[in-house]
């Protein structure tokens, strides 16, 4: 991983910037595209600005996948899964309701 403390983003090339990107994204602390430290670099390298913006969009949209949406079949396990869990728990001495798992 590249050392960010000595990097001069005002003068580096696009290829050099790419090498820093994994570490820059991992650093956190808000959007890189809005960080004043990179303003000059993005002005002279608009394609890098576009790339960073796209990767930020992907990462942000990914968070929305965490919570399943909709009630359609396919978003949850079949009833058989709960039935199997019940059977196994019964063997272990815990009796659960047959309609368990229904919201």
């Amino acid at each position, binding site marked *: 991983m590249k050392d960010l403390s000595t990097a001069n983003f005002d003068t580096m090339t696009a290829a050099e910037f790419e090498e820093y990107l994994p570490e820059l994204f991992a650093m956190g602390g808000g959007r890189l595209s809005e960080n004043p430290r990179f303003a000059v670099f993005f002005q002279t390298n608009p394609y890098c600005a576009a*790339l960073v913006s796209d990767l930020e969009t992907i990462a942000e949209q990914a968070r929305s996948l965490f919570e399943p949406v909709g009630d*359609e079949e396919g*978003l949850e396990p079949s009833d058989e*899964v*709960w039935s199997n869990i019940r059977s196994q*728990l019964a063997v272990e001495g815990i009796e659960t309701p047959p309609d368990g798992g229904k919201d």
Partner: protein
Amino acid sequence: MQTKPNPGFFKRNPPIEGEAEAIERAKNGDADAFSKLYALHKRRVYTLCLRMLGNVSEAEDMTQEAFLHLFRKLGSFRGESAFSTWLHRLTVNLVLMHLRKKGLNLVSLEETINPSEEDAPKRDFGSRDPQLAGSVDRVTLERAVASLPPGYRMVFVLHDVEGFEHNEIASMLECSTGNSKSQLHKARLKLRELLRQPEKLPPVAGLQEAAR
């Protein structure tokens, strides 16, 4: 004794109404409380398994295993992290164990998560690529994620979807944090590539079609 939770843990996984009570009741062997916990978490656990495994049948098997494991280990949950974080970590570890048993047990994931050159994102940095048009819709992203090589998909799902930190992922996948950061970056680059041509993404059975 219940440990005081760190509020920082709940930024992503806020407590669900009725969950804390169900946990305490389930710890005392209350069968209805087990059922309640299953109802509250089955969808997220199942979609996590499905994204990691890409197979409905295996995802159902691992969901079943995860909840059985949960019910057996619930007594060790101390509330030091959000319950769903704890449950998802348990699920990820079970899925990884399953994958290792299937054939990844001979070499570490450090080696096996690196996709072939063919699967790697194109090194076209600096060229004038068409930018993604603003937002990316959920269904298209889900399809693109499903199309990622398994190693990239694993790190992307764990970090960007599930919210695990690189050090946690490194520990789960038995790789370095640097490797986790690098794989995540490559995964996002590959996704950008895939999302530029969404019409070429193959339909995948499972959750993303149901989410339409």
